[in-house]
């Protein structure tokens, strides 16, 4: 079974107060030197069939229309396989 991973991150220009709150907690925990933290979402889609180009295109569409809100977020789509198949490249960011 193949796994397709969709990572969704807020666009750089969108304020990420959650990431900032995490970053501000770091010195208290003894972590120094981390200049910025951005928090995102990771979706792991286990695909029963082989991940064809067509299947990947549909997953990209899913990411574009549902998993990410491209007004504020960008996403990447990649195939994660046991044999270490090549990444499927980055999805478009609107």
């Amino acid at each position, binding site marked *: 079974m193949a796994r397709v991973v969709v990572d969704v991150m807020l666009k750089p220009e969108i*304020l990420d*107060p*959650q990431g900032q709150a995490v970053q501000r907690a770091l010195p208290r925990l003894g972590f120094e030197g981390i200049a910025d933290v951005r928090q995102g979402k990771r979706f792991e889609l286990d695909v029963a069939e082989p991940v064809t180009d067509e299947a990947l295109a549909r997953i990209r569409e899913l990411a574009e229309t*549902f998993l990410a809100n491209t*007004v*504020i977020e960008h996403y990447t789509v990649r195939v994660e396989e046991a044999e270490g198949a090549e990444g499927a490249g980055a999805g478009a960011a609107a």
Partner: protein
Amino acid sequence: MTGGLGRIGVVTFPGSLDDSDARRAVRLAGGEPVELWHRDADLRQVDAVVLPGGFSYGDYLRCGAIARFSPVMEPLLEQARGGMPVLGICNGFQVLCESHLLPGALTRNDHLHFVCRDQRLRVERTDTAWTSDYGQGQEITVPLKNGEGGYVADERTLDSLEAEGRVVFRYVGGNPNGSRRDIAGISNEAGNVVGLMPHPEHAVETLTGPTTDGLGFFTSVLKRLVTA
């Protein structure tokens, strides 16, 4: 119009909280509230629709993101594009943005706190379906309660909203959530679709609300339906 009263549908999604208050506001304004369910495939011949506040689908994924694909949204999107008045309050505003009926998005409050307070707003535009009973520049006070109410859009979108007069409400007396340019509510180009984070439906009678300032939303749309 299908009858003597304006029939105003209020959609209930799983996790909607303010649907009964919205129906009550419609009734107090003199309209006929109609319950709509998220699985409905048609709008039961209503003349306008309110998308209420709450946490549809638990706010999972993003606020409004799953509700946007509910069966009821299909006819709603089509009729809204055809001119039917639609009001999105809080979570309903988030659904309208996720549906791209309105531009931009609502993000987590910049200070990360949930806000619950009576909020002053300035009515910036009175020629929408939902604001004709207000005066230009009138200040109103209605409850505000959200954790993800920060309105964001890119600068070009913000500029065009301002230029086209589509900023319908602005926060007064302090920006409660980091919304760009103090924007509390906006409309589509035609002015039939309005979304805002504050809750006019909670300010329709003195017993339970801080004011009755919210009633004007519902009387405005009912007048519009009578003259339509």
